[in-house]
């Protein structure tokens, strides 16, 4: 029989592969199987599995010496990575749209909205479950010190990305500039930057925890 920790890793791996199949799977059927739909179903089932496991065995899913904040950072890292992947795919679809949508209602985002909706619901439930399992204290001065450092790393990454965007925009030929300066394209790029910032912050957070344990 698998331990809760091993089962958790299996669900995470299945969810990650299923998310990739949903987002980047081929449009055609493969050996009669609709990769996108099968991936979406597997993704949904593995997310439900993760939440059930977190509800039933909260103390066994993560290593004992991981603080509640570190556990939440891992969940946030996973979720922001998936949201970022979904947005990257979405930007790719948007770049192929001809003409570029001018209104929000014209955006080709139904698949993205479904995917992100499932992730945000799962995120909310997992935060509640982990807060319930955290015990009398869920965050303390050690967590806050690491959070401040991770926050700084996120801000630095965002500043760097903004400077890169400005330099790229300034160096683009006028014919390409028109597409990038479309308000909906620009808004989506800014959303991607903010999600990337959250991803870097959580990555820095778990790296700092791992380093503090050494």
């Amino acid at each position: 029989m698998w331990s809760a920790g091993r089962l958790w890793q299996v669900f995470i791996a299945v969810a990650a592969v299923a998310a990739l199949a949903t987002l980047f799977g081929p449009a055609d059927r493969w050996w009669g199987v609709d990769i996108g739909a099968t991936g979406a179903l597997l993704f949904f089932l593995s997310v439900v599995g993760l939440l059930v496991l977190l509800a039933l065995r909260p103390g066994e899913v993560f290593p004992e010496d991981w603080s509640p904040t570190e556990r939440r950072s891992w969940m946030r890292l996973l979720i922001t990575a998936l949201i970022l992947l979904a947005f990257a795919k979405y930007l790719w679809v948007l770049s192929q749209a001809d003409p570029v949508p001018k209104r929000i209602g014209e955006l080709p985002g139904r698949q993205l909205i479904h995917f992100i909706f499932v992730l945000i619901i799962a995120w909310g439930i997992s935060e509640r479950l982990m807060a319930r399992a955290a015990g009398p204290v869920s965050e303390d001065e050690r967590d806050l010190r690491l959070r401040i450092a991770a926050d700084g790393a996120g801000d630095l990454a965002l500043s760097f990305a903004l400077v890169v965007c400005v330099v790229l925009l300034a160096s683009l030929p006028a014919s390409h500039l028109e597409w990038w300066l479309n308000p909906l394209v620009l808004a989506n790029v800014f959303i991607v930057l903010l999600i990337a910032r959250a991803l870097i912050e959580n990555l820095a957070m778990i790296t700092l925890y791992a380093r503090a344990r050494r």
Partner: protein
Amino acid sequence: MSEILIRNRIRELRLARADLTQEKLGAACGVTRQTIIALEAGKYAPSLELAFKLALALGTTLDEVFQYEEKY
């Protein structure tokens, strides 16, 4: 360049009181059990406020719990 070492006797003093678990000590000081684990392993230097709280919860004085060393 000198290296500062802060040693502590938290584990020793906690184990001397049979009923004091890491969880209970953490709750008494307002920190998580994982922070107590890090402190006992010498992998975290607490703030002055937390150091006083730990000494109080362990029923002793600050200099009984923490020792400061400087290595050259």
